[in-house]
């Protein structure tokens, strides 16, 4: 049987071998003084190494105080919150709906100022039996929703 290699020695010392493998090497160690000596030496080195690492521990320990994270505090008013009665809310809602509906209807009506070239112009009314200086004439009235835009146009026949 071969002797222990460095990797196996390390695992043996740190008790990282499976139980079956450890039993196998234990049997070997019983019959191999060289491996026994190596294991003994490495065990001492490991213990000394761990002692050196332990020597790095602090001489004093801080007080066990956990600084809890500061959570945002929600300020609450001690005064009761006053809310208007339901009828006021209903009235406000009705007014709002009315205003919105009016705006909608207003926007739906044709705007003459913004009318395009194909849109119908003002109504044209021909007045018969009109006379100009005693002579028969044709009078045409162009009506418009805006009274200032209503004009008369009179021509001789």
């Amino acid at each position, binding site marked *: 049987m071969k002797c222990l290699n460095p*990797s196996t020695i390390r695992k043996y010392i740190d008790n990282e071998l499976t139980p079956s493998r450890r039993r196998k090497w234990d049997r070997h160690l019983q019959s191999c003084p060289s491996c026994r000596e190596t294991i003994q030496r490495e065990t001492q080195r490991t213990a000394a190494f761990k002692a050196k*690492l332990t*020597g*790095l*521990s602090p001489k004093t320990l801080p007080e*066990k105080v956990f600084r809890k994270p500061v959570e945002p505090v929600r300020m609450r008013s001690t005064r009761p919150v006053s809310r208007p009665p339901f009828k006021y809310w209903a009235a406000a809602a009705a007014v709002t709906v009315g205003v919105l509906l009016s705006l909608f209807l207003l926007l739906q009506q044709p705007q003459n100022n913004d009318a395009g070239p194909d849109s119908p112009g003002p109504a044209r009314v021909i007045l018969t039996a009109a006379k100009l200086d005693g002579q028969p004439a044709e009078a045409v009235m162009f009506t418009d929703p805006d009274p200032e835009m209503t004009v008369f146009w009179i021509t001789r026949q």
Partner: protein
Amino acid sequence: MRRKNKTGQTHSFDALFDRYYHNIYTFVYGISGNAETSEDLSQETFLKLYHALPANLPIENPRAWLYRVAANLTLNLLKREKKFRDILHEFPADTVTTEYASANGAGPQERDYIKHQETQLVRRQLALLPERDRVVLMLYREGFSYAQMAQMMDIKKNAVGVIISRAIDKLEKNVKKNTENIGGRL
């Protein structure tokens, strides 16, 4: 604040803090060598626990969980700042060991001083190791198994033994070298 794990065991934050705070502090101190940093990182570790317990995070082994968090926080800090290595390099290179002091009949005060020097020598040699290896060595000191260390550090299980063996060899060699520099009396 309490929560039950799969085995029905209840974790209480206060109990875990009381039980492991100094262990975590000592663990971080062993790597960083700085009291203020160790306290900050210990607090940060338990702050994560404070948030993790009500969030029902899977914490089956609180001790391993805490060490893992502390190890990662320390590792991140070491990688980010690299300041510890620079600080540790300021310590004097010549030193003697307590064994030498005892052999030469030094007094208690002198022995304390020499022990302090020896600790600084070990710390300096450890600081020369890669950050990950240093954390593994401190976890080794705490008695974690190879499997636990591998899981905590996200390395292969076989690599753990190699890191430990290499660190022991290097530390022993460098300590011997430094003591020889002051006269080769050891």
